[in-house]
């Protein structure tokens, strides 16, 4: 089975302090994978490594047959400045970056695709609204519309269902499952274990180091989750002692 992303003894971090250490694993192409772990486990850091905004401190991260343009990334909402005067349609249209780049203009056909993406996430009528006036759920729908336009083979979602209502979550989960059905690789950082068990066949449990990776039922055992918590509690100490000492 081919891989979409492979980690070989990978360490990632900030200011030379590792947030992810010695990770060895592979995300299978076409899989639907949840990344779970306690706070500070390095989940978001791992996604930033995959999109290339963090260079490895050690080891390797391979993208197999994927190019940078094949990856779409949903940042955490807290990474977005919602006070910036940007309308929904302008935000969503940025999903066409691969086609229009930094300088191209939107054709009539492109505008139609933007409208269809907005409609697909249930945001018709919100096109000209500033993003600052949207609720958390509406904002997440707009960001999913942008992802739809990116039409990527690998979709990375950083906490996509945090602080949104149940109906929005169900709608967005349907989009995620459709991507999976289309053969795309989807990787999502999640906190809600029930959602992971219900919708994500694969799970990577992280506590700065790999705890387990495989079918969700085999990974999310009480023992593994306890071990992940212990490893992250050990991370409260000096970074170089984290994880390994508690494992």
């Amino acid at each position, binding site marked *: 089975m081919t891989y979409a992303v492979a980690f070989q003894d990978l360490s990632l971090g900030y200011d030379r302090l590792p947030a992810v250490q010695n990770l060895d694993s592979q995300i299978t192409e076409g899989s639907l994978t949840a990344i779970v772990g306690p706070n500070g486990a390095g989940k978001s850091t791992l996604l930033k490594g995959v999109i290339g905004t963090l260079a490895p401190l050690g080891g390797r991260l391979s993208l197999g047959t994927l190019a940078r343009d094949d990856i*779409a*990334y949903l*940042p955490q909402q807290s990474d977005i*400045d919602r006070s910036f*005067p940007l309308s929904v349609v302008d935000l969503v249209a940025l999903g066409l970056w691969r086609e229009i780049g930094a300088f191209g203009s939107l054709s009539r056909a492109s505008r139609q695709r933007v409208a269809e993406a907005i409609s697909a996430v249930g945001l018709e009528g919100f096109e000209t609204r*500033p993003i600052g006036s949207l609720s958390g759920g509406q904002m997440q729908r707009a960001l999913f519309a942008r992802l739809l336009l990116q039409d990527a083979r690998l979709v990375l979602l950083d906490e996509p269902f945090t602080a949104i209502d149940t109906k929005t979550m169900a709608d967005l989960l349907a989009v995620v499952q459709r991507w999976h059905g289309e053969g795309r690789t989807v990787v999502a950082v999640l906190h809600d274990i029930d959602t992971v068990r219900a919708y994500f066949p694969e799970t990577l449990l992280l506590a700065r180091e790999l705890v387990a990776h495989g079918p969700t039922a085999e990974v999310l055992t009480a023992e593994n989750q306890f071990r992940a918590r212990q490893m992250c509690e050990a991370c409260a100490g000096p970074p170089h002692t984290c994880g390994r000492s508690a494992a």
Partner: protein
Amino acid sequence: MIWEALVQPFADFGFMRRALLGCIAISVGATPVGVFLMLRRMSLTGDAMAHAILPGAAVGYLIAGLSLGAMTIGGLIAGMAVALLSGFVARATALREDASLAAFYLISLAVGVLIVSTRGSNVDLMHVLFGTVLALNDAALILLCSIASLTVLTLAGLFRPLVLECADPMFLRSVSGLSAVTHFTFLTLVVLNLVGGFHALGTLMAVGIMILPAAAARFWVASIGRLIAVAMAVAIVSSVIGLLLSYHFSLPSGPAIILVAGFLYGLSLLLGPVGGLAARALPRPPLET
């Protein structure tokens, strides 16, 4: 009467027309930069950079006297050095960019004041600090118009990545390698416009025409294109009224222009429909069902 008050000073005197053209050029170039500084929450960075260019201008003055070219190049070198050094320190050490920028601009400012005050006269110091908008010559006007043109063209080219760098920098980094280029090109535009502005308004006032119109515009409109247009209009109106006040009441022109911009900012703060004090005090319409 109105003609005499508003038009005749510009019709009769070449130095007033030159001052007006210089101020319009600064308004066109500097205010869009100010809008992005404000939206990136970097308004005080503009102020810091304005101080940082002082020693470069002073060294230029020491070498070549009141030479436009030498002071411009000196200011550019000093401004870019502070911008790049503070960026490098922020990336290479534990110090954040705001703290490293503050450290470098304060050192830079102290060096500049020391040079000007020990080697120049009070008149030179006043020229560098407060500009000479009523004494702009052809070369200065060409410089200001060139900087405005270059700024508008660069911003037009970099508009989309700059918007993303402000609103959603992680997304920009995920789709493009333009993030660092955008950041440093933008900082170059900030320095360039401050250096242009200091010939007319001085190092301390140049940042005023950048930030005050942008802050005023924020209370009137809510889209980026309109923000830039309104900010430019506020800057141009401030320039015209400031120059007229300066002419009729023998006031220093730079502070007069900035104070008019400040007055328009105060007015916008009170009456602006987008988050102004009056708009917030008024009862909201009932929610739609």
